[in-house]
Each structure stands twice: as structure tokens, then as C-alpha cells.
């Protein structure tokens, strides 16, 4: 039994990090890396075939004894948390160093350890009360990390929005755990599929964890928080923190009975999230906001897989097979998205660090100054667009296989599997457009302003973190066959009946094909390069668009690039456009401003909350401090009660 | 025979989508005319050769396939209308709406309690889809003539539904509707011409200012 010591090691490292992180950055880094290794080790040992790890202590916290438990499902998330947490710690040593951020660097290290510890606690805890405590601690840690650089108003606003939205979700979770504990009679969590009466609680789970996961339209807090946070924080928020919402959904859809409509609702919500998330991403000009919206899309992809799994579990028969395939894809996508999104946020942070801006229209031509960052971003783009031979493809392929099998069985689930498969394809194509835009506008062409001209490559620690994550993206893509036992273990932990079912996913030939494609790509690129070198290569201006003096501002901008496809989603994007055309023979100037507002926040949530405020202000007039009126209320209340008794009695 | 009928109804359903997707008036009118002609053939297929049925079929084909389209084309030419359709709901969205409606109609028809001899045919879904297409055209187009085409497709849907009752009710009712419609189109043709002369536009959005 090596799992227990590993977790103890991780706990020790994180506790040490919280205590000593402020003063001793090197010790903190070592401790955090130790904790990450411990967590990853525990998770991998368990996934590779170890038994479930359960630990009970006699020590009561809040009246409940501590009960920890690590099984296949939570191990998947623990592994992801450890990897991104460790990589982010390495990255932040340089990105948010004491030299540059004297005021907040030490604080940031502490909160970072706290965030990792509280997320680990949520993953391990098998007690409703402790789960809620950990959940709250995790939210608070994330809030302080988002607002590390609290001098800017946008950052503070993003932080408050995050906190408010998270608590709106936490309210649902409070209600959920309280009702659960009330009807079961204990705060202990575990498989309880036999309690059929618990099924309606799933809607609370969906709302509560959906907010955290950034499910469309509950994602309102996500873009601003992820865009305004320091980039290593964005990476762990996007890569791991929103996955905690997914963890909650996976966990409680596996442990509790679900209503009949649950699978349908989840898969449809996933479809909406996938398409609209990436449509919003395509329209953005802010690099980190684009990445944040892309996370909404990927959560959608994961939920498509989860929804299909729930449908398969409800369907029975061969539904067990395709449901398991889809769930395997969803869980693998949790890993994959964590890896490539953290990689992309790291490279975006590196760009921000070097140029001081996130606006793509001000960037351009960065590859020469930052070749490592450009390469990392390109690799991440290939992965996020789900292209072979990288990891994003493997998980989407598994989800596709599940959906295709659901369609060929022509059961009732096929009616939703057909649109889901098409949506997956559409979202993939839109993701390709989005990341071609982001990658090439930022790193290729000529510098659009003076800022990128003075850019510099990031240092060795930031580069190291990026290279590590890139290696994971490559490794998971090239050797998916290694994942088979892990995925079998994780999916079997979700649904007990799936233990003996063979999902029939030929990961071995896929791995061979990926490897062959990767090798062919390498050979092809090398051959073409060698040939070009042999023939001779001239550098020159190739084609000037026919203009005498082509300027950098003549390049395609991110707005013009995304406009074509974004126009199809005008009904929800609601772009605000201000245009003043040049007039007359000697025009004095022209203006074109395109802005994509946060539609759900500005058009739906804000009016709704203003309405609530109005109503409550109106209601507040009832409370004015005049005793006479209060007595009138009292008498009126008694009269109404009397009337009710009277009418009730007469029946 | 059911197979041939289904192919014809399928063709009519395809023409619905063509009508929704066509961006020019002549194309739209052609689609509507072709659909009318296709529908006109159906009674003959469903019924034994009867002189009354044959007569009605010929009348339908002539009316829907020739007379009404000719009237519309003439009105279009006389009023000198722009050929481009100016949509309220874009072509791609209306096409997707129509396709979604068609799929929904097929799914709905399976749930309806139909007579066993009608269960295998596409008549009911075809009729529902046509009615829906008609509505989408009526809602989503601005020109008076394209709205008339919407009415025609709507009527085609009702005609398809009427075919279900071909054994029960005489074709007189259908013939009556057809007559009404022909007269209606005739009148609209004249009105369109007058409106065009008086106000220089046929855009229904602009005609709303004519109220009092």
C-alpha cells in the first residue's frame, strides 16, 4: 500500500508550503513539487490497478469524523490537479517572481498551496460536510489568487463576480448536501443508487457544479476571471478548477440515482456549451478571454461524453458499452484539456509578460523573439483543435465512437447522439478556426504595434513548465494504449455494472496509427526542409499586395478573421459596432470599433438582477419603522390566517 | 404504388426546402409551381382511374403548375419587382428551420394515431412539413409575392392532408379551395401592381406605415 504514504507526503508538502511559502520561495517550490509528485504517484498507482484507498480517522472535524477515500474517478482528477499544480508552481516562480511582484508574490505562493490542498481535500473527502468545507476553502483560495494583482479595477471586479457566482452555486450544493444528509440520515457519502427517492436531487447537483464548471449559460463569471487572473492562476483555474465542477457531476451522477431526463439534459447542455463557447471564443480579441471561452467549449465536450454515458447506463444492454466508451472519452478529455489549456495559458502568459498586452490586434510577429512560446502555442493549438497525433484527438475520438455506436443501435438515445456527433464536428472545426486565428495573429506576420517589437523570450523555468506540459500532450497522443487500464479502472468506478463490459475501443491500432503519422510527419518535414536547403532559399519580400509601402496595419486582424464565422452567431454574440466611414475628397478620419460584449452577463443577468433589486427596494418600503403600520400588518396577517382556516374548515 | 407516392411526397418535401433556400423570386415561383404539379399527379396514383379524379388532377396541375405561376410571374414583371428576395429570416436559418420542421413532422407523424393504410406513407409528415414551410415563408419574407408563395405552399400542405380523405370526401372541397386561391392570386396580382404604382415599393415592412 503505497497510496497512503504518497497522500501523506502530498499533504505534508502542501502544509509546509502554506506555512513557509511566503518567506522561502525555493523551499516552497521544492515542497510543492514534492506534493505534486505525491499526489500524482498516489493517483497513478491507484489507476494502474491498486485497490481503493480508504482512511478514517477518529478525529472529528465539525462533529463528523474524517473519512477520506480515493477511487478511480477521484484519482483521475487528483492526477490532473497534481500535474498542473506542479507545473504552475514552477512557472509562477519566474512569472510571478518576488522581484517583479514584491507585494503579492509571497501571498500568491501561500494561496497556491492552499488551493491545491483544498482541491485535494474536495477530491478525497467522503463526507458531505467536509466536502462543503473544502469546496468553500477552494473557492476562497481561488478568489484570492484571481485578485493577486488587486490594483486594477478589472481584476477586482472579475474577482467579485467569481466569488458571487461561485456562492450562487454553493447555495445549491448546501441545499443538496443538506437534503441528502436529511434523507439518508448521515453525512457520509458513497454509492447509494438504491435510494430511488434521491433522484430529483440531481438537478441541484447540475446547477451547483454547473456554475463551477462554466456550463453555458452559467459561465458568466468564467471569461473575466480567467482573463484577468495571473496566467499561472488562469492555467490552474481553466485546467483544474472548473474540472472540480465536472468531478462533482461525474461523482454524484455515479453515486446517486438520476432522474430519467438527466442524461438528455446533460448532453444537450454539453452541446449548447460546446458550440456557443467556441463561437464566443472565435469572436474575442483578448487572447486570454479567447482561451477562457474555449474552456466553456471543452466543458461542453466533456459533458457530451458524460451525458452519453448517463444515457447508456439508463439504456442498458449494449448501452453499457457505448456509454462506457463515451465516459472514458470524457474523463480522458478532462486530462487532455487540463494539459493543453494549461500549456496555452502558460504561453499566453509568456506573451503577456513579454509585451504587456493581451489584445491580439496589438501583437504579431512574435515568433522571432519568442520561438519557444510560439512553438508551445502551436502545439497546444493542434491539441485543442483535436487533431491527430496529439492528445485532444484521442479523447474526442473515444466520445465519437461512443456516439456512433449509440447511433448504430438506433435506440432512443440515437436521436440525440446524431446531433451530438455533428455538434462535436462543428465545434472541432470552429476550434481550428479559432486557434489558427489566435496562433497566427499573435505569433506570425509583422508586429502591429511597437509593443511586440521589444518582446523577449521567457526564462528557463517558464519554458520548462511549458515543455513538460507539451510532452504530456504529445505522450498521451502517441501512446493512448497505455491509457486503456486507467480508463477501464476509472469508468468501472463510476458504474459498478461496467466492470465486466468490454467497451471495444481499439486504442492499440490508434496508437500505432498516431505513432506512424507522427513519424511520417517528422520525416516529411525534415525531407522537405533538406530539399529546400539543397535548392537554395532566398529571404525577401514575397508579395506586396501591390502596394508601394505595405504596412503592418494592413494585415488581417483578429476581428476581420473571425468575422465571417462569428456572423453566423450574431444572434447571441450581439456585437456592438461603431463605424464612421471616411467622407469627402479629403477624409479627416474613419473609425471602426467592434466589441463583443458578454451577452449572458450584460443582456440577461444584469437586467435580471436589476429587476430583483427594484423589486426588493419596493418591498423594502414595507419596513419603515412605523409601529402603527406593523400592527396593521399583524392584524392583516391574522385576518388572512383566519380566513384560510375558515375556508379550509368549510371544505 | 405506395413507393411511388412516397417518392413524390419526398420530392414535394425537397421542394419545400428549395423554396426556403431560393434567393430569387423566379426560383421560388418555379419551386412552388413544380410542387403544385407534383401534388396534382397524386390523386391519380391513389385512386383508380376515374374521370372525375382525372379531371381534378388535370385541373390541379394546370392551376397550380401553370396558371398561378404565370399570374405571379406576370405580376412580378408588371410591377417591375426586384428579383432578389430580401429575407426577414436569413436563408440558412430558414433552411435549417424547414429541415428541423421536416424531421419533427416525420417524428410526430409516427406518434399520431393514423389508419394502418396511411401509416406507411409520407402523406401526413409531408403535409405537416409543407404547412410549416408555408408559415416560415410567410413570417420570414418581406415581399408580397414571396408571401403569396408561402400561402401556396401552405395550401399544398392542406391538399396533401386532404388526400388522406380522398375516399371519404369528394374532391369538390379541394377544387373549391383551389378556385378560391386562384382568384386570390389573381386579385393579389392586381393589387400588387396598384401598390407598386402608388407607393413605389412592395416591401411589407414599409407598408405598415399605411395604417391610418
Amino acid at each position: 500500500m503505497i497510496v497512503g504514504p504518497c497522500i501523506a507526503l502530498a499533504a505534508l508538502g502542501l502544509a509546509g508550503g502554506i506555512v513557509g511559502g511566503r518567506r522561502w520561495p525555493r523551499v516552497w517550490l521544492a515542497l510543492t513539487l514534492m506534493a505534486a509528485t505525491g499526489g500524482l504517484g498516489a493517483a497513478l498507482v491507484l489507476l494502474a490497478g491498486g485497490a481503493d484507498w480508504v482512511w478514517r480517522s477518529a478525529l472529528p472535524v465539525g462533529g463528523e469524523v474524517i473519512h477520506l477515500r480515493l477511487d478511480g474517478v477521484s484519482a483521475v482528477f487528483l492526477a490532473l490537479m497534481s500535474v498542473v499544480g506542479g507545473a504552475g508552481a514552477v512557472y509562477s516562480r519566474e512569472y510571478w517572481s518576488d522581484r517583479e511582484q514584491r507585494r503579492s508574490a509571497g501571498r500568491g505562493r501561500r494561496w497556491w498551496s492552499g488551493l491545491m490542498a483544498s482541491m485535494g481535500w474536495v477530491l478525497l473527502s467522503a463526507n458531505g460536510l467536509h466536502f462543503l468545507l473544502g469546496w468553500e476553502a477552494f473557492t476562497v483560495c481561488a478568489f484570492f489568487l484571481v485578485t493577486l494583482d488587486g490594483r486594477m479595477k478589472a481584476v477586482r471586479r472579475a474577482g467579485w463576480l467569481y466569488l458571487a457566482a461561485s456562492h450562487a452555486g454553493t447555495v445549491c450544493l448546501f441545499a443538496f448536501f443538506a437534503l441528502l444528509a436529511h434523507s439518508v440520515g448521515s453525512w457520509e457519502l458513497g454509492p447509494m443508487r438504491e435510494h430511488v427517492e434521491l433522484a430529483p436531487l440531481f438537478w441541484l447537483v447540475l446547477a451547483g457544479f454547473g456554475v463551477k464548471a462554466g456550463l453555458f449559460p452559467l459561465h458568466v463569471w468564467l471569461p473575466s476571471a480567467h482573463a484577468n487572473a495571473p496566467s499561472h492562476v488562469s492555467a490552474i483555474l481553466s485546467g483544474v478548477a472548473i474540472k472540480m465542477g465536472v468531478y462533482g457531476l461525474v461523482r454524484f451522477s455515479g453515486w446517486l440515482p438520476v432522474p430519467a431526463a438527466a442524461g438528455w439534459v446533460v448532453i444537450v447542455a454539453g452541446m449548447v456549451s460546446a458550440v456557443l463557447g467556441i463561437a464566443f471564443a472565435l469572436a474575442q480579441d483578448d487572447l486570454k478571454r479567447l482561451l477562457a471561452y474555449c474552456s466553456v467549449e471543452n466543458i461542453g465536450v466533456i459533458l457530451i461524453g458524460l451525458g452519453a454515458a448517463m444515457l447508456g447506463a439508463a439504456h442498458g444492454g449494449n448501452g453499457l458499452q457505448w456509454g462506457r466508451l463515451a465516459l472514458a472519452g470524457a474523463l480522458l478529455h478532462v486530462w487532455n484539456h487540463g494539459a493543453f489549456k494549461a500549456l496555452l495559458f502558460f504561453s499566453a502568459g509568456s506573451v503577456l509578460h513579454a509585451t504587456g498586452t493581451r489584445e491580439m490586434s496589438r501583437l504579431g510577429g512574435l515568433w522571432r523573439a519568442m520561438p519557444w512560446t510560439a512553438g508551445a502555442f502551436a502545439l497546444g493549438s493542434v491539441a485543442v483543435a483535436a487533431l491527430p497525433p496529439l492528445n485532444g484527438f484521442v479523447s474526442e475520438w473515444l466520445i465519437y465512437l461512443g456516439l456512433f455506436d449509440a447511433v448504430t443501435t438506433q435506440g432512443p438515445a440515437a436521436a440525440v447522439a446524431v446531433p451530438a456527433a455533428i455538434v462535436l464536428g462543428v465545434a472541432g472545426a470552429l476550434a481550428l478556426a479559432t486557434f489558427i486565428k489566435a496562433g497566427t495573429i499573435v505569433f506570425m506576420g509583422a508586429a502591429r504595434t511597437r509593443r511586440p517589437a521589444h518582446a523577449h523570450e521567457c526564462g528557463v523555468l517558464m519554458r520548462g513548465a511549458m515543455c513538460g506540459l507539451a510532452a504530456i500532450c504529445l505522450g498521451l497522443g502517441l501512446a493512448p494504449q497505455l491509457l486503456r487500464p486507467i480508463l477501464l479502472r476509472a469508468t468501472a468506478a463510476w458504474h459498478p455494472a461496467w466492470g465486466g463490459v468490454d467497451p471495444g475501443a481499439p486504442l492499440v491500432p490508434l496508437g500505432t496509427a498516431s505513432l506512424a503519422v507522427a513519424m511520417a510527419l517528422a520525416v516529411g518535414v525534415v525531407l522537405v526542409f533538406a530539399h529546400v536547403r539543397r535548392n537554395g532559399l532566398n529571404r525577401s519580400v514575397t508579395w506586396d499586395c501591390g502596394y508601394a509601402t505595405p504596412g503592418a496595419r494592413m494585415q488581417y486582424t483578429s476581428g476581420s478573421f473571425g468575422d465571417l464565422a462569428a456572423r453566423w452567431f450574431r444572434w447571441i454574440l450581439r456585437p456592438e459596432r461603431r463605424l464612421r466611414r471616411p467622407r469627402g475628397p479629403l477624409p479627416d478620419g474613419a473609425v471602426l470599433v467592434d466589441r463583443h460584449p458578454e451577452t449572458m452577463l450584460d443582456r440577461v443577468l444584469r437586467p435580471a438582477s436589476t429587476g430583483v433589486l427594484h423589486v426588493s427596494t419596493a418591498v423594502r418600503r414595507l419596513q419603515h419603522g412605523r409601529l402603527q403600520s406593523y400592527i396593521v400588518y399583524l392584524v392583516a396577517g391574522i385576518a388572512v390566517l383566519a380566513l384560510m382556516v375558515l375556508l379550509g374548515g368549510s371544505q | 404504388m405506395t413507393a411511388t407516392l412516397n417518392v413524390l411526397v419526398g420530392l414535394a418535401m425537397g421542394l419545400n426546402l428549395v423554396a426556403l433556400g431560393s434567393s430569387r423570386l423566379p426560383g421560388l415561383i418555379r419551386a412552388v409551381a413544380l410542387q403544385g404539379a407534383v401534388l396534382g399527379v397524386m390523386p391519380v396514383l391513389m385512386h383508380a382511374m376515374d374521370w372525375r379524379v382525372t379531371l381534378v388532377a388535370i385541373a390541379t396541375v394546370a392551376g397550380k403548375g401553370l396558371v398561378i405561376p404565370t399570374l405571379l410571374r406576370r405580376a412580378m414583371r408588371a410591377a417591375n419587382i426586384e428579383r432578389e428576395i430580401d429575407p426577414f429570416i436569413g436563408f440558412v436559418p430558414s433552411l435549417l428551420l424547414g429541415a428541423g420542421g421536416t424531421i419533427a413532422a416525420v417524428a410526430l407523424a409516427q406518434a399520431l394515431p393514423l389508419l394502418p393504410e396511411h401509416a406507411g406513407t409520407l402523406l401526413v409528415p409531408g403535409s405537416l412539413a409543407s404547412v410549416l414551410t408555408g408559415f416560415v415563408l410567410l413570417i420570414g419574407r418581406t415581399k408580397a409575392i414571396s408571401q403569396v408563395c408561402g400561402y401556396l405552399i401552405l395550401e399544398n400542405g392542406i391538399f396533401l392532408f386532404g388526400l388522406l380523405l380522398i375516399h371519404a370526401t369528394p374532391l369538390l372541397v379541394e377544387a373549391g379551395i383551389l378556385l378560391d386561391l386562384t382568384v386570390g392570386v389573381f386579385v393579389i396580382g392586381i393589387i400588387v401592381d396598384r401598390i407598386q404604382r402608388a407607393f413605389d415599393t412592395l416591401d411589407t415592412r414599409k407598408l405598415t406605415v399605411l395604417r391610418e
Partner: protein
Amino acid sequence: MTPYLEVPLRLVVLLGLAPLLPGIINKVKAWVGGRRGPPVLQLYYDLARLWRKGVVMSTLASPGFIAGPAVAWVAVVAAIVLLPLGPAEAPFAFRGDVLLMIYLLALARFGTTWAAMETGSAFEGMGVAREVSYAVIAEAAIIAAVLSLSVQTGSVSLSAMLAPAPGAGAVLLAAGLFTVLLAENCRVPFDDPNTHLELTMIHEVMALDHSGPPLAVILHGAAVKLLLFSLLLVEAVLPLGGVSAPVALAIIAAGVFVVTIGVGLVESLLARFAFRSVPLLLTTAFLMCLFALLMAWKGGAA
């Protein structure tokens, strides 16, 4: 035959024959237009010439400018290897290979578009934006088409999906796939392969700054992609399951020839569409594939 022998053999044949297709199309166009036209083997000459030339590379471009076309070419070639040829199964068939093929084509798109954006020219930006935007609808159409084949055969492997007789929706499927073929290969109603310096194009504009061997790679890759889509269309629509291998190969070759001539005729007889009606046409293709899927479904249920 062992795969070690079969894969190179197939590659030689397919890659060798691919440049014929654009030649045939041009010949058909010339014939309809009453001209003599370039020789059928013109693309071979062009490729050979380009392969020997040096490269002029924009001062702004990164090594990705050369790597992109190479990646795209390898991806397309890998995709065509996955395609079975009638009864001769693909040397590398497995469950789900069809999705790998679709995503390899997407990888090829990534390579070409990334390389095109390298120079920072607004022309390339325009072309790339169009290419990736229209690909969204084309992707939906391809997935719908693949789903319909999958429903017909109950399989997710290309070798099994393409073998049997087509279902009721074959005509719809053929029309949908042909439209997608035209769009994906930037043929006439969507794009004009003849115009090189106008604002009305998608694919040609992306190769505007390329020269020498990378351009040769792009052109050859485009020819292979055309061959791939023609093969897919022919095998999806024609029943090849029951016939013997030589007959099937002959049928496939004839089918590809017919498709190529069809492309040539479309190009001679149609004008390029206005850009705003391109999504409409692609949506139509998507709906045709979708209705083919529904017909396959109803056919399977009945």
C-alpha cells in the same frame, strides 16, 4: 500481401495517379469551351519543375512556412492510406479509422492555413478566414454522411462502411458528398481555381506566397485530396461488396473518372457563386447528407 509491401504499392499508385485528376478536369473544361487546353499531364510537368526550383521566403515567415505544407501533405497521404479500395481492405483498418481520416484532413487544413498566415499578407488572411469558416459547415456535412454510412452498415470502420450496397438515400448522399467535394477542394461554385489575383478566392490565395518545393507539395497534396474525396464518393455510393477485386478496381477507376468529368462539367457550366450564398449551398449539402442519414435510419428500422 503483407502491409509492408502493400502500403508502398498503394502509395505509389495513388500518389502517382492523383495529378491526373486536375489534368482531366482542365481538359474537360477546354473541350467544353472549344479550346485545345493544356496537356493532361501538365501538373506532372509543373510539379517536376517546381521541385527543382529554389524557394523565396518572406522575410516575416518562420520555418512553419515550409513545415506547414509538408505537414498537410503527409496528413492527406496518411488519410488516403486509410481508405479501402473496394474489396481490398485498407492495409490499416480498425474501428474508428473513419474519424481518424476526417481529422487527418483537418490536420492538413491546419498545416496549409497556418503556413499561409505566416507572411502576414491580408490576402492570405482573407483566404484562410474563408477556408476555415466554410470548413465548419463542410465538416458537419461530412460527419452526417459518415453517420449515414455507419447507420446503413452498423459499423464505424471504413472497410465495412464502404463495401455494401447503398441504401435508399444513395442519391441524396451522392449529391451531398459531391457538393462537399467541390467545397473542400475549392472547385467552382465555391472557389475559382483559375483566378490567381482576385479577391474572390479561397484556396489559390493561400498558396500565393509559396514557391518552389513547398508549392509543389501544396499542389500535389491538393490533387491527392481531390482523389481522396472522389474515391470516398464513388465507394460510398456504388455497391462494391460482392464483386471480385479486379472488377471492383475497374469500377472504382471508372467512377473516379466520371466524378472528375463531372467536376469539369460543373466548372464549365456554372459560375462561381457570390460569397454570401456559399454557406447556403454548403448547408444544402449538409441537409442532403442529413436526410440521407434519416432515410438510412428509416430503412434500417423498417
